[in-house]
């Protein structure tokens, strides 16, 4: 009650309400802070947010069919794809009109390329037909059905029109279906033929191998980081240089060096044969397979595990282990109950770093992976640079991103993301 009687607004020295002047001074601070981070914000937006959003969009965007063949798409709505009969003359007439405009704008071959992802043969059909359709007159030369089938027998096949109809939607799930070895059909999503199913397998392999590489990195990096953190400064600095040395060598050189080491006439095999451990005609196959990928990538990614581990271990005071020992804990108990739990944030940070880098790697698997050591990124690279199927590449990239986020979420649930420390 007493509060209520004196609860008029508090005033600042100049008579404005205190809350208001506080807000004003805070706002000024916020604006200044915002101005300071503006360049970074802009950079992140330009280099990170926009490309990702554009990738997400590209994986579903499919305006090309309805934009190139607007009249045809309208006519196709009246055609029953399941009837097993060819569309009527009206559709052929609309198609010719569309194509004449498209050839004029040189867009028919792009559409052919797009549809060829779905139905092999469309690319050349559009390219070849374009030249002939160009000469037709949309009024005088009607009717077109026969003429078109003359130009290319493909126009007389129901499957052609089914494909165009199926992929006429401006926003499609087709790329995502392709990305998981399925395809968009008039009847809904269907599995790809078995001999074309590869991407799910590659996703699985990428995740599995990345996990193994991460695990191998943990095992190798832990003792090294421990030494780095506990050895006297002079020795540990030297060791640190050895750890960082690979960073100063080109990735390609390091990967190629592994080839020299691991190939059948390579250093390791030669040594083993010379020592008599391995018969000359039974040399080990340790490259151009998963093993080669694991070895080379573990080596390449090792520093990314060591550095966070080291920086975390460095902050663990030796008095903890001493305390534990003074309380009667054996060396093992001290390590397992006291040292190890405190080094987990380093393992966590290193693992996330290595795993995410590994999952997106493609140069090293390409060079030393042979046929069974390649990653999903190799297919993404193929679709970006060779097949130009950017929609599929974007869908694959989006799935990869989703998988990483999902794993990150799982990690947060299991270990806790606050349990990650880069130093």
């Amino acid at each position, binding site marked *: 009650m007493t509060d209520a009687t004196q609860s008029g607004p508090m005033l600042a020295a100049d008579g404005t309400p205190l809350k208001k002047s506080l807000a004003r001074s805070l706002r000024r601070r916020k604006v200044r802070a915002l101005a300071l981070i503006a360049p970074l914000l802009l950079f992140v937006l330009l280099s990170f947010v926009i490309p990702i959003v554009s990738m997400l969009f590209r994986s579903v965007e499919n305006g090309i069919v309805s934009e190139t063949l607007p009249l045809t798409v309208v006519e196709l709505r009246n055609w029953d794809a399941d009837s097993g009969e060819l569309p009527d003359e009206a559709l052929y007439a609309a198609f010719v009109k569309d194509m004449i405009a498209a050839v004029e704008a*040189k*867009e028919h*071959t*792009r559409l*052919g*390329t797009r549809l*060829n*992802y779905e139905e*092999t*043969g*469309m*690319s*050349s059909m559009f*390219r070849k037909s374009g030249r002939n359709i160009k000469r037709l007159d949309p009024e005088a030369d009607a009717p077109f059905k026969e003429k078109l089938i003359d130009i290319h027998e493909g126009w007389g096949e129901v499957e052609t029109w089914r494909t165009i109809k199926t992929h006429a939607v401006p926003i499609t799930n087709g790329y995502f279906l392709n990305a998981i070895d399925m395809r968009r059909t008039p009847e809904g999503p269907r599995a790809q033929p078995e*001999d*074309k*199913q*590869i991407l799910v*397998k*590659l996703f699985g*392999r990428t995740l599995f191998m990345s996990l193994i590489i991460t695990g191998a990195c943990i095992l190798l990096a832990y003792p090294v980081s421990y030494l780095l953190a506990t050895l006297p400064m002079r020795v540990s600095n030297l060791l640190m240089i050895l750890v960082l040395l690979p960073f100063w060598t080109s990735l390609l050189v390091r990967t190629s060096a592994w080839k020299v080491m691991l*190939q*059948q*006439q*390579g250093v390791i095999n030669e040594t083993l044969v010379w020592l008599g451990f391995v018969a000359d005609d039974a040399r080990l196959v340790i490259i*151009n397979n998963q093993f080669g990928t694991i070895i080379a990538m573990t080596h390449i990614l090792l520093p990314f595990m060591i550095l966070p581990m080291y920086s975390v271990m460095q902050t663990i005071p030796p008095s903890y282990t001493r305390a534990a020992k003074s309380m009667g804990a054996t060396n093992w108990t001290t390590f397992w109950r006291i040292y190890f739990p405190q080094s987990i944030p380093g393992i966590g940070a290193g693992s996330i770093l290595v795993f995410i880098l590994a999952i997106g790697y493609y140069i090293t698997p*390409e*060079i030393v992976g*042979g*046929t*069974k050591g*390649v990653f999903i990124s190799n*297919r993404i690279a*193929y679709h*970006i*640079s*060779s*097949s*130009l*199927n*950017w929609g599929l590449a974007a869908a694959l990239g989006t799935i990869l991103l989703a998988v990483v986020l999902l794993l990150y979420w799982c990690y947060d649930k299991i270990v806790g993301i606050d349990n990650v420390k880069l130093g």
Partner: protein
Amino acid sequence: MKVTKSTLLASAVAAIAGSAMAEEMTLVSWGGAYQASQTKAYAEPFMEMNPGLTIVWDESSPEAVAKLRAMNEAGNITWDLVDVVAADAIRLCDEGLAMEYDPDELLAAAPDGTPASEDFGDLLVSDCFIPQIVYSTTAAYRPDLLPDGAPAPDSICAMFDMETYPGKRTLEKRPINNMEWALICDGVAKDDVYDVLATEEGQQRALDKLGTIKDQVVWWGAAAEPPQLLADGEVVMGTSYNGRWFSAIEEQDQPFEMLWDAQVFDLDGWIIPAGLSEERLARVKEFVKFATDTQRLADQAKFISYGPARASSAPLVGQHAELGIDMAPHMPTDPNNAKNTFLYNYEFWADYRDDIDAKFQAWLAQ
């Protein structure tokens, strides 16, 4: 504030004007020996003729298709002329990223007056493609690694003959060429290869044939790998581009033998990116006309063992600029080498590449 803005503007204008005055032309190529041959055979002579012009090289040809598409989407084409293989040229043309041109208008006629369209002939595989060279993907082997008494291989089918020629082989990690050779060695006539390959059964047949040697194949991704693998004794035979074999055998004295049988001709050449400004286009056209004339293409063969794309250049091919050896016998088009060849079927692969590639990759991963 006003001062800063105007100074900025002034310096920006100066920068743009400066770059325009320096007259730069950006050519995209593959780097390495091939780019060097282009530099020596036509870029340097052209710059001598045009003192104000600088030619800048960008070694981006392996990613040219994707990069051009990205440039096109961004609306800022920074390249003036791009060297690509014919298959990529077709793709770029289909995508509207390369400029269509009229050969007889753009390209120089042969010295005897034969129009360019005739001189290049069948090699004009796309409306956008300006051919430069013919190269081939062909096989080579190490005679010293073959079993004693084994006859020297004379057919591509030695690749599939594990009994006579045991040991590992290296093949390119893609279906193109390998599928054709597999069918030929499975008894398909050369003329029927693509008809067979267009069917599901034919594709499976080719994969099955490749399957007979699958566990003995080291698959390569970069053309530099096969000579290295052969030199290290990792494989006994393999395929690569004929130019790579030439430089390994003649320049590095590697004990390889060429196996020209069933070599697959492919083409490499220029495309002009669509959407260049008038001024840039005029300059590029001038360069292209010069760089693809009969003499220039013949000159290029002095530096690399790829055949000139013009019929009229063939007689002018001389000796290697440094080694001093006759280049003609090393050309894939030399009659001795070209007894049994076939040309990459662009139309077919433009249609089937993605489909067969998916099957091939799935098959590889099995």
